Every structure is written in C-alpha cells, then in structure tokens.
C-alpha cells in the first residue's frame, strides 16, 4: 500500500469502518511509515478531542420530567 492510498483510508480506519483485509493493510503500512503514522496519530487525537469536548451536555432534568408527564397524558 502506498502513502496516498493509506491516507485515503484514514478516517474509515479510525472509525473502524474498514473490512478486515484493508484494515490489516493499513496497519501494516503504518508500522513502517513514520509520516503516515504521525498523521494518523494526529487525526485520532483530534477525533478523541472532539468527542470529549462535545458530550458534557445532557438533557436538563426538567425536560425529562416534562416528557414523562406528557407520556402519562397520552
């Protein structure tokens, strides 16, 4: 696998959306290619950062109470 082909699979690889054979090829490439490895690391860090910064917000308890009340009225 060449660098260009590898980078094309970057997000699907990090999202665990590749078929096992392609995933194996990507992993093999990353093991010996430092530039691709660094790029994948950076994007993986970005996705973890994104997930961590966006999940703190949950529904306010009043909203849940309101919904439960509405269900009772149905």
């Amino acid at each position, binding site marked *: 696998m060449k660098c260009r082909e590898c980078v094309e699979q970057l997000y699907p690889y990090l999202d665990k959306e590749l078929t096992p054979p392609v995933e194996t090829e990507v992993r093999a490439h990353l093991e010996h290619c430092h530039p691709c490895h660094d790029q994948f690391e*950076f994007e993986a860090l970005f996705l973890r950062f994104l997930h961590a910064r966006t999940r703190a917000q949950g529904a306010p308890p009043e909203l849940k109470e309101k*919904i439960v009340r509405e269900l009772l009225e149905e």
Partner: protein
Amino acid sequence: MAPDTPPPASDGDTDGDRAKRAAFEREALVHLDSVFRVARRLAGNAADADDLVQETFLKAYRSWNQYQPGTNAKGWLLTILRNSFINEYRRRNRHPETVDVDAVAPYAVFSEVQQEDPQRAFFDRIVDDEVLRAIDGLPESFRETLVLSDVEGLPYQEIARVLGVPVGTVKSRLFRARQALQAKLYDYAVGMGYIKGRAT
C-alpha cells in the same frame, strides 16, 4: 404548547398502557441525552431544541407499535428528530454559517502543527463551548453528519439511514466537516495565541 398541568389520575391506565410506557422508558427514553444533544446542534437554540426533543418523544411514543424491539432505537429516534426538524423548525433556524467547507485544504492543519506543536498541546486549551460554536458554524448537512458520528458515535451505515443518503456521501461529508472544523479551531487557537500559526 399547553401550560404545565399535573399528571391526570392514572385510574384509567390499563396494564397495557403501563407496559407500553415501561418499554418506552427502557428502550427509548434512555437515549434522551443523545436526542437532546443532536437537537441542540440542529436547532441552534435551547428553546427550539427542547420543543423538538419533546415532540420527538411524543411522536415516537405514538408510533411505538412501529418500532421493532431490539433494533436500533437511537437511530429510530434520531430519524424522527431530524424529520421533525426539517418539517417544522428548519425555516426558523438561525445558524450562522461561518465555515466554508469548500475552501479548506485537506490535512492543512496537520502539516501546520507538525513543526511547532508536536505534542498538540493546543487541543488542551480549547474549551467545550468553543468546539460547539465551531460545529454550529458548519453548513447543516455537514453539521448533522459530524454530530451523528463524532458526538454520538453512530456507524456510517446508521448515519446514512438517519439522513437518507448513501454511505459514500456520509464518508465524504464527514471528511470535509472534520477538516473544516479542524481548520476553524486551528485559526481560533492561533487567534488566541495558543500557537504561533502559519507565517503570512
């Protein structure tokens, strides 16, 4: 919306009603936080998001017989949410679209930060609100794809189902949305002095 009224006496409740409610709470209401987060990013303001969430759960409850137990309740709820948003809320939507996804060079940020911040420490300094604001600046089709994937963790196939688009479209939107968001946050970090930024 009717003013708050106390719940009616549950005398008229049959065992069937109670069973339905219990199943709904167990399988659907557990996804309230996810539905809320997606609604918040779609609607752009708290009041519309709350209404949208209430409406989603009410519609879901009324069509509960169409839901197949054990299938993906979260995806089902998010589909209802999105349809409600498109049909009733979208025109009121006041999202400031500030990110031009077409103008973003792929992987530009990675090459920029390589030299000066190899530990990527600038990520640590960008707070939640700033990330959410940047997401809110994405064009709608990119925003919803990114939220379903990166906030809620849905697989491509499920996102494609919720949005009614092919998986290939999900992939390409996700790529462009992430790159645009990254560029936006990078510019923000440079503006705040967290990193030096590219020479101009």
